């Protein structure tokens, strides 16, 4: 699954959408392994 992030730089008003970095993907895979589907 390709993951993307919206990054808002509040001081400049810049908004970018970019793919996850390798480090972010690795962390996301850990997060998803610990997913919680109960409220």
């Amino acid at each position, binding site marked *: 699954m390709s993951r993307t992030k919206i990054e808002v*730089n509040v001081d400049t008003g810049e908004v970018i959408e970019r793919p*996850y970095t390798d480090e972010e993907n690795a962390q996301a895979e850990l997060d998803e392994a610990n997913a919680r589907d109960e409220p």
Partner: protein
Amino acid sequence: MAVKSNFASGEVLTASDVNTYLTNGGLVYIAETIIGAGATTSISFNNVFTSTFDNYQVLIDNFTPSIGNLGLNFRLRVGGVDAFGATDYKNAFLGLTDTGAASNFTSAGQDNGSTGMFNSSTTVVHSSATMIFFNPARTVRTNIQSHAQLFAGQLFHRTGSVLHDLTTAYDGFTLLLSGAGNITTLRVRIYGYRQA
């Protein structure tokens, strides 16, 4: 600044008074971001926590995920990097359903904090939160309090606290899902609490 609230009928409201109250209002708008019919895995706000304010209010609503049964979590961040120490976020939320059942959520240590929001549906827009971040930009433990409404086949309410248990200063935060999927819709508004 002391709040002057006893204006009397017929009293002259001076330019000085107006300027004073306009520049010393309670909440100060900082930013808004809307995701509408999009598909993003997470959203990060950089350079939002500064020395201008100690405390911040974040209003989040219009939350739908691309896959049902997902909550909305957050992480503090600094310099464009999320803080995700494995046990740094402590969560304690009281919960109640619309039929009176208890639905608490607690975690003595995990790598993200809960906004209290959740949506079991990909179409029903029924999840919102008011969050207050205390002293995120100071080198102290950040306290976060949230009041949230969520949808899990019925109405739930959660109110609770998150402690980020590190004495670290942060300049932003990330909102992310509790599992695999994308954020389809979301609206985030950020305000600072004026201090004087």
